[in-house]
């Protein structure tokens, strides 16, 4: 309906291969960015920003990371939580080792460590396929969790065993620690997530992304087309873990403020996997939609009893929450196994052909 594509013709491959070839889509992106960068900081309450937007963005980034692996490369992973942990602990260590380096640089660099760890645990994927790979990634998950507990160097020999975020400034503004305002933290997270999403989209639409998808769709044919599985799979593991690592570091530094091993347990891996599957495998938009669904829905559910004046104790609400989420996951898988992204694409298609049904 809002798509007016008549007259949008392409005279060069550059225009035709653009990631958003339709003018209205580009406008929509501009609109979303304006909302995210201007409207939300301006109008959003602290609660909204801290409890919904920041974690939503961070989980979106982690979901993008996992989606690169599962959705684009077809390698199942249950180690997301641990890879996020690697990023978080790496960033924490770096802040103590290089206290003067800009924290944002450290956050991004922490991804390098998780990428390295991801590659190591990705190595078995060269020989192991399908569910067998789940075991490898679970090995990573539990081994790394164990490291987070048993290697006290990682948390600077704290008695609590937790990592706590020091206060840091960037460009004269306090960006981490308890005194950083939610809006500041939100804007930094948003900027990083937007930039990294853009990069992910570029990679996916290019040669490397194509090699991932080739491996995913038909690995044997891919190899016969000259794709080296080693490069394709390991690059996917590296990029994926990088994203998860940065998400993990941001989770601690811009959201939680402190964390211990529970923040990176296998349940987090599941959570992110849900986001990816519900959002839609092989879709960046889906990663955002999935994160929104899985993260924001429970926040809303929790708020419901209060709003309608029901007196239910918190534990019960939590149990019902679990049931609803579980039920919804099954419901979604039955109704639309390709996730919210497919619904999104269908809606878009509907609008493009409006008023026709197809």
């Amino acid at each position: 309906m809002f798509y007016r594509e008549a007259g949008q013709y392409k005279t060069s491959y550059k225009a035709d291969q653009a990631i958003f070839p339709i003018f209205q889509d580009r406008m929509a992106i501009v609109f979303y960015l304006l909302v995210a960068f201007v409207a939300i900081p301006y109008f959003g309450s602290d609660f909204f920003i801290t409890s919904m937007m920041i974690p939503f963005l961070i989980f979106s980034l982690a979901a993008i990371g996992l989606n690169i692996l599962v959705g684009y490369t077809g390698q199942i992973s249950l180690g997301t939580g641990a890879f996020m942990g690697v990023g978080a602990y790496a960033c924490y260590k770096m802040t103590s080792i290089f206290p003067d380096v800009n924290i944002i640089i450290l956050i991004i660099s922490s991804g390098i460590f998780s990428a390295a760890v991801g590659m190591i645990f990705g190595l078995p994927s060269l020989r192991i396929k399908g569910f067998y790979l789940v075991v490898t990634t679970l090995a990573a998950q539990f081994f790394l969790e164990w490291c987070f507990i048993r290697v006290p160097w990682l948390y600077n020999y704290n008695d609590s065993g937790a990592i706590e975020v020091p206060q840091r400034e960037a460009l004269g503004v306090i960006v981490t620690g308890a005194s950083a305002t939610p809006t500041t933290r939100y804007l930094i997270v948003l900027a990083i997530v937007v930039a990294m999403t853009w990069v992910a989209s570029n990679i996916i639409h290019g040669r490397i992304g194509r090699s991932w998808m080739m491996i995913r769709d038909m690995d044997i044919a891919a190899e016969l087309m000259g794709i080296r599985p080693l490069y394709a799979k390991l690059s996917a593991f590296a990029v994926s873990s990088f994203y998860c690592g940065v998400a993990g570091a941001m989770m601690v530094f811009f959201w939680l403020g402190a964390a211990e091993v529970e923040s990176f347990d296998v349940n987090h891996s599941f959570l992110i996997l849900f986001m990816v599957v519900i959002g839609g495998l092989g879709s960046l938009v889906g990663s955002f939609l999935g994160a929104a669904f899985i993260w924001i829905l429970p926040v809303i559910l929790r708020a419901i009893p209060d709003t309608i004046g029901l007196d239910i104790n918190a534990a019960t609400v939590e149990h019902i929450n679990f049931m609803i989420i579980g039920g919804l996951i099954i419901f979604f898988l039955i109704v639309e196994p390709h996730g919210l992204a497919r619904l999104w694409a269908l809606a878009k298609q509907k609008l493009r052909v409006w008023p026709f049904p197809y």
Partner: protein
Amino acid sequence: MSADKSAARGEVRSIDSLVTFPQYLLLNARRFATRPAMRHKNYGIWQSWTWLQMHEEIRAFSLGLKELGLDKGQKIAIIGANRPRLYWTFCAAQALGAVPVPIYSDSIAEEMEYVLEHAETVMAVCQDQEQIDKVLSMGKKLKTLKTIIYDEPRGMRDYDLDELRSFEDVQKLGEKTLGSKDAADEWEKNIYQAKGDDLAVMLYTSGTTGRPKGVMLSNDNMVKTAISANEFDHFDETEQIVAYLPLAWVGDHVFSYGQAFTAGYCVCCPESAETVNEDRREIAPTYFFAPPRVFEIMLTAIMVRMEDAGTFKKKMFHYFLDHASKVGEKILNGEKVAVFDRIKYFIGELMVYGPLKNRLGFTNVKVGYTAGEAIGPEIFRFYRSLGINLKQLYGQTEASVYISAQPDGEIRAETVGRPSPGVEIEIADSGEVMYRSPGVFVGYYKNEKSTKETKTKDGWVHTGDAGFIDDNGHLRIIDRAKDVGKLIDGSMFAPKYIENKLKFFPNVKEAVAFGDGREFVGVIVNIDLTSVGNWAERNNIAYASYQELAAHPQVYKMMAEHIEQVNRDLSGEEMMAGAQISRFLVLHKELDADDGELTRTLKVRRNFISERYAPLIEAIYDGSTEKYVDTEVIFEDGRKGSISATVEVRDVKVFAPVSHKEAAE
């Protein structure tokens, strides 16, 4: 080829002194050097040429043709779909004073052979292997044809004939001569030497009877017509059009070549015939031309598709369409409309009209024309109510198209508008429409007799159509003059008039009416497979073939209803009330150009049909209720076969004439 070397460097001539299209090319290469001249969807994107680039391409090719010996006055055939290179060939040939002769690319070899031979073409530029094969199949019969040039090299590897050359090769040949200093200058000089009364192009009209005739049109005919047409609709270099109608048809030649060169606008060639709709959507032309049939098909497709939409959407769609039919045209014509209706129309534009125009690629249309046949008033109004400035024009090859056209703001479905600028119209005593204009053709090639029959000494041309000028000064066309006849009781019988009324029903594809010198009017109807097929599907009517569907009692019932409606309409028209349809049959096969039942431009060949289906016509008039027929058909690959069927004939209700006074109340 560097730009500065090739930028038209000769003398600067004033625009008023230009009399040929190659001269306009030189002008455009200078004044619109960086503006797009042509686009072609190829290799997935719109390959584009600016006027300067196109100038270079044409010059190289033209010089190449010269090298190959093409000379002033010689004929060069152009065969193929709408491709930039084929359009360039027109100009390249004209630059040398040669005469391009475009030929319908869907002609069968036999038809093509006649034209090639009759026009004494020395060269042929073909689009692809398919056309080359047709030309080569004529072998040595074409004595004059020396060189054949092809645009698409696909599959041409195995043809090692001396007379075959690729377009590129010819261009290379031409570029080589550019090495010598004077070639370019001489080429330009040659272009400026051309005269207005030199022959510009020869177009063969398929005609409803007999062999095609070669209509000779001069530079003056074409250039002057094109210029006044541009002025009439205020076209300039910013227009974009999609060239999709046959090259050999005068309309396309004027719109996509003549008007484009004089106005300097951009012509876009679709990727293939199947992708025309999509390509039009991408380009969103500002100027659009189509015969009524195309508008009909489009409307049918819209309605059929909407049938599958959800209830809500369907309701909304029809609600707003209803509203548009009430106020849309008024708004377009700038008439007074209530504010509330305007708001409603605005919402409709947002929800329905806008998106619909967008899907059809009509978003940017400034002017749309329909011509060639009468368009159904419903269809015409439908498009206008959406805010598309669709107009009618009346024209002929012999007139370089324009005879009359509707000026903005004076649009009525039943007329074809006022005389075009520079055109005089008179109605002969016989009722035939005659005209005189700068566009009037030079004559029929090698056919003095026909020329004399058609064109008087003073330059008046017989259109062969019967019509009259109405109270508003608009021309109305009734029918082919020679087809207008009388029933035995003396009532006027205009078959085309009746047929058109029938054809305005989406379910009716074609209708042929008989009645001249008979007791009553009888009709042979062709159903529209898309539309009726869709209806059948929705109503769970099973059918295995066209033939089966056509003979279905339900289909007959539907056709009878349509015909009754036509009779009701006719009964209200003074002149026509006497000739209502009494009997009809639904033909068991689709009328087809390959079987000679239609012309290449898909007009009905009345005489041929009445001979071919004589037994059926007899059955209409002798009162039988059914008749067995066996018809020979030609398949696409040229094989012959036959279709036989028992066709049912039915009676329909006739209405008493309504006097005009009563109708007015």
